[in-house]
């Protein structure tokens, strides 16, 4: 029987590890092959059906635009309209200059107002009543939106879409995301996403070609009657020429400056009011403040 003299020289443990090394190499090759196959696959077949990926792409598209402007036709159900208890239809025009300027103009049936932010101050102009208030708010749009939200208790309309990272702001709220197919919204072919969150369940339509938001319907499921916000986006311009002057409010002579109340001030007023006995607060019975059940 012939023996390979070199084989005898090989130590036993070398032979023991040989199958292991072979298996390891095979697995690596299989993985490499799988990865290359995945990379060769057209992005449309996977990314376009992935709601998370679509949200990211939309976010990146918006965030990459240094300047942008768009229009929103917003319908708010009565339960979401501040104090008036009637549905509100508003046309909102938003202009953004990154990193630190925005302007929003809202025209509704009974009120016209504008919000100005120039990186140094925030101004709210009630065009209907010819009143305005200004507050010092310094920083980028993201910082300003967070400060306004925290200190003054509101955000600019649909602020999620003008932040530096819309995906971050939206995904923080979301519990589940689902892809519902494609639909035509106002003549634009759109991806339809269904997004679920604690506060509101939303349907979002994103243009298949431009990856811009086209429509949003949010149902506030914790509110009585499940009121809805509907926003239809249009007139997208990711390269508008914006004059810096448009972000700073300059009051005309017939416009009066008033105070901007903070959330803390309003809470303090509410606490005083609730602490005071009815007899000590003669306004209490006469004041026509509308309050809803459960408030």
């Amino acid at each position, binding site marked *: 029987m012939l023996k390979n003299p070199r084989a005898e020289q090989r130590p036993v443990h070398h032979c023991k590890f040989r199958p292991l090394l072979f298996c390891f190499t095979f697995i690596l090759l299989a993985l490499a092959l799988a990865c290359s196959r995945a990379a060769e696959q057209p992005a449309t077949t996977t990314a376009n059906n992935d709601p998370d990926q679509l949200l990211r792409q939309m976010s990146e598209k918006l965030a990459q635009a240094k300047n942008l402007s768009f229009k929103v036709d917003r319908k708010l159900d009565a339960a979401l309209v501040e*104090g008036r208890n009637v549905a509100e239809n508003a046309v909102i025009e938003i202009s953004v200059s990154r990193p630190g300027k925005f302007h929003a103009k809202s025209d509704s049936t009974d*009120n016209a107002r504008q919000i100005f932010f120039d990186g140094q101050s925030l101004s709210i102009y009630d065009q209907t*009543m010819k009143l305005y208030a200004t507050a010092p708010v310094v920083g980028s749009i993201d910082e300003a939106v967070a400060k306004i939200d925290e200190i003054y208790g509101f955000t*600019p309309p649909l602020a999620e879409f003008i932040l530096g990272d819309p995906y971050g702001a939206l995904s923080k709220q979301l519990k589940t995301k689902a892809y519902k197919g494609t639909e035509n919204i106002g003549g634009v072919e759109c991806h339809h996403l269904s997004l679920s969150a604690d506060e509101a369940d939303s349907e979002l339509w994103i243009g298949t070609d431009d990856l811009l938001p086209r429509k949003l319907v949010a149902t506030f499921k914790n509110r009585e009657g499940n009121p809805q916000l509907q926003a239809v986006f249009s007139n997208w311009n990711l390269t508008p020429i914006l004059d810096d002057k448009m972000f700073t409010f300059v009051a005309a002579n017939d416009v009066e400056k008033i105070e901007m*109340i903070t*959330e803390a001030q309003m809470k303090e007023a*509410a606490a*005083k009011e609730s602490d005071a006995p009815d007899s000590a607060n003669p306004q209490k019975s006469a004041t026509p403040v*509308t309050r809803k059940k*459960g408030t």
Partner: protein
Amino acid sequence: MKTTNRSYRGKFRAALERGKTISRVALVGALVLCSVSVALAQVYGVRRTAVVRGPNTTVVASRTTVVAGGTALPHGYIAALPGGYRAVVVSGARYYTVGGVYYRPQIYGGRTVYVRVHI
């Protein structure tokens, strides 16, 4: 040959450690990136519902929006003036009056609200 195997094992362990380090860095990076994004108290400009919880953490009521910001206005505040109001200027400041009641305008929650005042 023992030396060779030890060297393989050493390399494998080193690669494993590198992988772990990369994973840790990626995790920390992801956490840092998450913390940068803005967490708003509002959803599309609508205040989140303030859930009022009872003693057994059961939900007893949910506040609904009365003005922008979702908190109910204290007594003395109104979100819209009653019909028939007229503007008056007192000591250089504008007030609104209707039915003998005076209101001073203020901006709250991004909108104009009116607080009842005595003049």
